[in-house]
């Protein structure tokens, strides 16, 4: 040892005073200043190029700030703080970036969907007798259909998914169970890759074979097809959540003479409930907008049908899809008469698109509500850290 480690890490001379100016954390407004400078510079550059726009200033300004902020911090605060600043900027940038699609998408859907959404009878009516460009029609039947099909898909996949996750975390620890567990984990991963349309084809083939009725189209088929898509999401994310429950807690419970299954139910699941609700909500959100499998399995119907095991059903995604596919409507005459109610309606060329956007808005709102419910659940059941 030619040199003791202390010599270079702890030699008093090498120690800077705490308030040393060579490396110190500058207050936040330095960041704001560099940000402002970057924005101004961006504006000037764009002006020089003759391409000034707000979006351009934001984007170029952000990129410039990455460089300028870093360089400034590197000089004034040193390498470590500069890196820290840089990463903070990246992280904030990532968030801002994600807001772009989110906001624009919501805006787009709201702007295009809201007018039709508030039209009388849109939320409460169905499509009976609504033909051509008739400026009428509602989606109540599709809302109910979507909720039913998704509900039943959850009824099928949440228990299976949750129990599988429990198996993977709590049981598949030694011996043949571990081998089986590895196999299942792998298969679940593969399952995430099943294209939704294949799930639909499978659900169709399954029911046709079992009932030997080639024309069968019922809500339950859709639920089964969707659960095929939902299960892997449930398994994967709830597995993650259950794994995060500290071993300590299980041991504490075992030591109190609580059997394994009660420990899992009352301690593990209870502790993980917040994460589990998120998983299930995510899984529901994953499938609630699926079109292709439902198209093949539940068909379409302009009326309300709440029977899951008999008759076709309308759902929001297939409704959106078919309205979009119908495209521009024909308006050869100014008015159209609903053959069932006999009421005369105006004709609108864009009505199909309007209905599609409005239905999309409703679908998003449904998931929002589901999310809020899930959040309330996790809020009330999450571990109380008390800190």
């Amino acid at each position, binding site marked *: 040892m030619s040199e003791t480690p202390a010599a270079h890490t702890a030699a008093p001379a090498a120690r800077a005073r705490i308030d040393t100016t060579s490396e110190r954390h500058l207050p936040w407004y330095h960041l704001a200043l560099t940000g402002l400078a970057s924005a101004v510079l961006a504006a000037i550059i764009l002006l020089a190029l003759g391409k000034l726009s707000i979006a351009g200033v934001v984007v170029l300004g952000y990129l410039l700030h990455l460089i300028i902020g870093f360089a400034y911090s590197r000089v004034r605060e040193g390498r470590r703080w500069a890196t820290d600043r840089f990463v903070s900027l990246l992280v904030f940038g990532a968030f801002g970036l994600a807001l772009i699609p989110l906001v624009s998408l919501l805006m787009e859907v709201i702007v295009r969907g809201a007018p039709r959404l508030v039209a009388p009878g849109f939320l409460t009516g169905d499509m*009976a*007798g*609504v*033909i*051509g*460009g008739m400026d009428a029609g509602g989606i109540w039947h599709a809302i109910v259909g979507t909720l039913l099909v998704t509900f039943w898909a959850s009824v099928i996949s949440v228990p299976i998914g949750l129990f599988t996750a429990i198996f993977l975390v709590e049981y598949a620890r030694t011996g043949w169970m571990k081998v089986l567990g590895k196999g299942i984990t792998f298969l679940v991963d593969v399952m995430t890759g099943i294209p939704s349309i294949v799930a639909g084809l499978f659900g169709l083939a399954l029911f*046709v074979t079992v009932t030997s*009725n*080639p*024309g*069968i*189209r019922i809500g339950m088929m859709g639920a089964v097809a969707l659960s095929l898509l939902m299960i892997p999401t449930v398994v994967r994310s709830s597995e993650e959540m259950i794994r995060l429950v500290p071993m300590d807690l299980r041991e504490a419970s075992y030591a109190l003479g609580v059997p394994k299954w009660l420990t899992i139910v009352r301690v593990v699941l209870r502790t993980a409930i917040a994460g589990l609700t998120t998983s299930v909500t995510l899984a529901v959100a994953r499938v609630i907008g699926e079109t292709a499998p439902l*198209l*093949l399995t539940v*068909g*379409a*119907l*302009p*009326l*309300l*049908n709440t*029977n899951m095991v*008999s*008759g*076709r059903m309308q759902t929001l995604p297939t409704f959106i899809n*078919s309205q*979009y*596919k*119908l*495209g*521009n*409507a*024909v308006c*050869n*005459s100014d008015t*159209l008469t609903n*053959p*069932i109610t006999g009421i005369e309606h105006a004709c609108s*060329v864009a009505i199909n698109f309007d209905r599609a956007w409005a239905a999309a808005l409703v679908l998003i709102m449904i998931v929002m509500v589901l999310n809020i419910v899930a959040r309330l659940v996790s809020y009330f059941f999450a571990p109380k850290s008390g800190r």
Partner: protein
Amino acid sequence: GGSGDPAANGGSGSSDSGSSASGTISGQLAGAGASSQEAAQGAWTQNFIALNPEAQVTYDSVGSGKGRDQFISGGVKFAGSDEAMKPEDMEKAAETCQGGTAMDIPVYISPIAVVYKLDGVDNLQLSPATVAGIFSGQITKWNDPAIVADNPDANLPDKAITPVHRSDKSGTTGNFTHFLSETAPEAWTAGEVEEWPTDGGQSGDGTSGLVSTVEGGDGTIGYADFSKAGNLGVAKIKIGEEYVAPSADGAAKAVEASPREEGREEGDIAVEIDRKQTDSGVYPLVLVSYLITCDTYEDQATADLVKGYASYVISEDGQKAAEEAAGSAPLTEGLRTDAQKSIDSIKAKA
């Protein structure tokens, strides 16, 4: 299923409807098939239900191919198809049709428009060869001499042409390419295809996808049901010596004047559209879509139901409803008479 269910699997007609003594038809009937017919079928089913409140007819627009498949397997009692049944399909359908035969009945005629988006050009006129040149990639500029020759008065820009085709397999593509291969065989060599024959290029899924792609670009051109053209420019096509805009009338006339396919069973009406006809006012770039039914069903109830529905579809009322709802061309009198004859032959298994 009982009549309480809003819809059920194909054709399980309720027992009391058999002789339709009350004058109304009842029972449940499911059909599936071409998406081109979706708007028209919507109008037909809804109107039919309004006329026969005891009846329940549904139509899933799953595509012609799937519709024929389901019809052959017995999943649905009628199908909608942009193409007449092929002979081998006819054989397969014999079982579903209780040993009888399946029938193609033309019910939906729609002109196909060549749509485009090109600022400053409102009245585009194109000859079939030019269209074929554009879509086969030989003509790439809007101010190409061939286009200029068709439009001597227009102010055509020096802009690239972006042809847009259907990315899905479709009857519209089939009719469009058939038209090109018949009228401009030198320029269009790929023949009649339902799937676009060449790789690459701009395309859209379904009519809506195609229309929105054409709308989304500049200097784009595509083909779509005339009724779906929306705000896009619609080109006049050179038929004979005239430039003809697509119209319901012209389409119906073109179908009327076309021969029937030979060698078909009695009652099976497959139109072989004559794309080369040049009579004044005809528009032979047209799509004919069929209703496919059996001539024999397993029970009287189903037979009555199908018969009633099909009759309504081809009736003057039905065709008018489709015209209003879907912008299709009403069947001409001659075709309707033949179709009615076929429909009248529908019966239950002895």
